[in-house]
């Protein structure tokens, strides 16, 4: 297992009012690494995480601000992983209609844009659940990816 260079666990109330705080936390943690990600990669991480946090607030907890969304940042020499955990309604990929950026305005639906962004900006996206009833999503970003 690769050694962690940076690790942070925290949580936020399940309300979209905290989107900007989530972004600020990522920026303050990642931009100050000894070897920080490029500005483009940092933006990709912030945007994908913002979309994941927003989806969790809206769909897992229906914007119930008394609930809590856990957020974990793990940085190794080769990867930055963002994990979000909750105990609300889990995301069901089988019932999700993918967003189509080629669709016309009439055909287009706004739902699914967040997952589309996550899948395009992260190198790997995973959703799973634990036996303890906790649901998690992990966004992984390769630090050595020159395309970022």
């Amino acid at each position, binding site marked *: 297992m690769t050694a962690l260079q940076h690790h942070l666990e925290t949580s936020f109330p399940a309300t979209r*009012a905290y*989107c*900007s705080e989530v972004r600020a936390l990522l920026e303050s943690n990642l931009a100050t690494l000894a070897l920080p990600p490029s500005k483009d990669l940092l933006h990709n991480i912030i945007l994908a995480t913002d979309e994941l946090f*927003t989806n969790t607030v809206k769909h897992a907890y229906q914007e119930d601000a008394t609930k809590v969304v856990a957020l974990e940042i793990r940085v190794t020499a080769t990867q930055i992983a963002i994990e979000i955990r909750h105990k609300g309604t889990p995301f069901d990929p089988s019932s999700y209609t993918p967003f189509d950026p080629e*669709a*016309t*305005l009439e055909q287009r639906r706004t739902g699914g844009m967040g997952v*589309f962004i996550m899948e395009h900006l992260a190198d790997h996206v995973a959703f799973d659940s634990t036996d303890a009833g906790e649901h998690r999503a992990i966004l992984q970003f390769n630090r050595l990816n020159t395309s970022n």
Partner: protein
Amino acid sequence: MSQDSFQIHSQTKDEFTILKLQGELDAQTAVVLEDEFEKLLSKQRYQVITNGQALQYIASAGLGVYMAYIERFRENGGDIKVTHLSERVQHVFDLLGLPKLVDVVDTDDDAMLRFQSTS
């Protein structure tokens, strides 16, 4: 934790309304842009330019506002045109295929010319 991170400065120039977007347009602040579009519809100001020169960040919720409202302006002979996007914001527009649906041009003058050429 408020909507202060996003502001709109509205200017009118003849039949055009120029909305200068400033700050971060996300799931929390998207309602500010929705409210502005609603106000313009109620005032029958249908020729709208959103200037993104000071727009530092956009999430999908912000793009969803354009998709939700643009048809209502077009039905009334108008449009929402988009100008002065930063490279970063333009990238998010491109990722979600918005330039196929929304007229994105360089400057406000370009947008006004586009309105005039299609009226």
